[in-house]
């Protein structure tokens, strides 16, 4: 909020009107519809629907396939977040150290930001294609029977690998700019006090990066929940047997492929609540430990 502002007038309402109108029609109304539909059950022909209280919710949440998707989403988003953050942090620290070739490294490490998740998924899919894919043969060359079409763990591995690959670049950009924001005087003072670069990193640099890390954790979890849809849809499509189905992918599958509007809406509502609760937890418990 600005200290100096314009006086009361109808003008601000005119300026927010377009944004508000779009949000009302394409965000609030559909979100409300999702809540409404989640309490309704349509008959087989879609002609009439009836109010069924929480039946869609209990059918959803106590369903083994939903529970499996929730479990997979939890593991998947944790791994994608930790791996892509860790890898990006390592690269950013190293890119911040070098002098020769610094801008070339920077460009090569960040450009994949522009690639769409489904395009990354398709490329990965082709690389793991048993007919031509070198990665498929590479995995099998260790004597391990790798088959992401059949084995759950292998399918999960492929989806996680592509999701991490796609997310490293954006995390790298933020970590690098965070590192460059640390004043030279601080790093120089630290170098005088402490000889070990590893210890210096964990006691000085990493705490100073905490706000960036916190921000990235929130965005990475949102990425893993929602944006990886394109990767899953172009690689495993949730197979084998729903092993790589995330909660968002299940909303889509049940709603569009299965035409179960009530159930899918109930899932949407549960998912919205999960995201809200996760965000609140992150703000309350993690941000408190972050020193700005």
């Amino acid at each position, binding site marked *: *909020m*600005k*200290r*100096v*502002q*314009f006086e*009361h007038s109808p003008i*601000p*309402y005119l300026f*927010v009107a*377009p*944004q*508000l109108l779009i*949000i009302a*029609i*394409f*965000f*609030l*109304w*559909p979100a409300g519809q999702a809540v409404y539909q989640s309490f309704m059950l349509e008959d087989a022909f879609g002609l009439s629907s009836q109010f069924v209280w929480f039946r869609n919710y209990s059918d959803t949440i106590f369903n083994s396939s939903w529970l499996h998707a929730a479990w997979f989403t939890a593991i998947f988003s944790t791994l994608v977040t930790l791996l892509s953050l860790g890898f990006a942090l390592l*690269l950013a620290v*190293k*890119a911040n150290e070098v002098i020769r*070739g610094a801008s070339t*490294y920077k*460009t090569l490490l*960040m*450009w*994949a930001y522009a*690639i*769409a*998740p*489904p*395009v990354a998924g*398709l*490329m990965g899919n*082709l*690389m793991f*294609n048993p*007919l*031509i*894919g*070198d990665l498929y043969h590479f995995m099998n060359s260790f004597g391990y029977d790798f088959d992401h079409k059949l084995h759950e763990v292998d399918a999960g591995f492929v989806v996680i690998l592509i999701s991490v690959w796609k997310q490293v670049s*954006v995390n790298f950009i*933020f970590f690098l*700019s965070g590192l460059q924001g640390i004043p030279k005087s601080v790093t120089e003072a630290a170098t005088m006090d402490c000889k070990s670069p590893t210890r210096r990193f964990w006691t000085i640099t990493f705490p100073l990066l905490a706000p960036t890390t916190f921000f990235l954790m929130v965005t990475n979890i*949102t990425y893993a929940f*929602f944006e990886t*849809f394109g990767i899953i*849809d*172009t690689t495993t499509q949730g197979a084998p047997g729903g092993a790589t189905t995330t909660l968002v992918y299940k*909303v*889509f599958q049940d*709603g*569009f492929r299965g035409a179960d509007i009530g159930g899918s*809406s109930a899932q*949407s509502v549960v998912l*919205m609540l999960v*995201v809200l609760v996760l*965000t609140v937890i992150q703000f309350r418990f993690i941000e408190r430990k972050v020193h700005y």
Partner: protein
Amino acid sequence: MNRHTVITHFILIVGALFMTLPVWVAFMTSTHAPETIMRDGLQFWPGGHFLETYNEVLFEQGGVMKKVTALGMMKNSLILGIGFSVGKVIISMFAAYAIVYFRFRMANFLFWIIFMTLLLPLEVRIIPSYKVVADLGLLDTHTGLIVPLIASATGTFFFRQFFRSVPDEILEAARLDGASTWSFFIDILVPLSKTMIAAILIIMFVVGWNQYLWPLIMTTKEENYTLVIGIKQIYQVLNEGGELPQFQKAFALTILATLPPVLVVLVFQKWFVKGLVESEK
């Protein structure tokens, strides 16, 4: 060079290879004949079929899809990317201006709604959104494709952060000179935000071009496909056909879908990084 520097460069080279090699291999493989790919697998060096494959994919109809060429899909992607970024910048600048520079009752409430739209993207309310657009008769139209995506108010959030960093003295001075709310916005704030506007245009162009789920469900006609959703359909056809799988075309399409956003990001790298990082504060 001491040992530490060598290790640093080694890690960076491995990282750079990890990030670039997949796309390099995809590009190289797309320049080979399908027989070569089937026999020898992925390719690391250029082959002799670059012009042939890309010509066919870009301009010839009825190859793998009936009515569309990659060029047609590219046009749709451009409309989506540009329409989305320009629309978003205009609408979100207006909204952010009101939130930051005016004292009005709804301001706080509005900010929270905007924050909510950031947390809950289109993916969670995809079916009711589809219904709304269908009821409005907007399926298969540019409006129906672009406007619902603008509902997620990321741009407003960016501009809000930026406007808050503009010194208060500027508004004080402008008011002493008797500037109206509109002339302050258009003559002072917009020119001040030039770099920020450029950065957000770039970021949003990439975001718009890369949209997947929404175009996938709301376009039904082939001629409205964007590249990103079109390539998936083509890929499915490739695998089902009885003939030799046309892997080179699938790779060529992924390269074409990647090229425009990558070029934009590389050419405007400075602005783009600045805009992206600015949004965090």
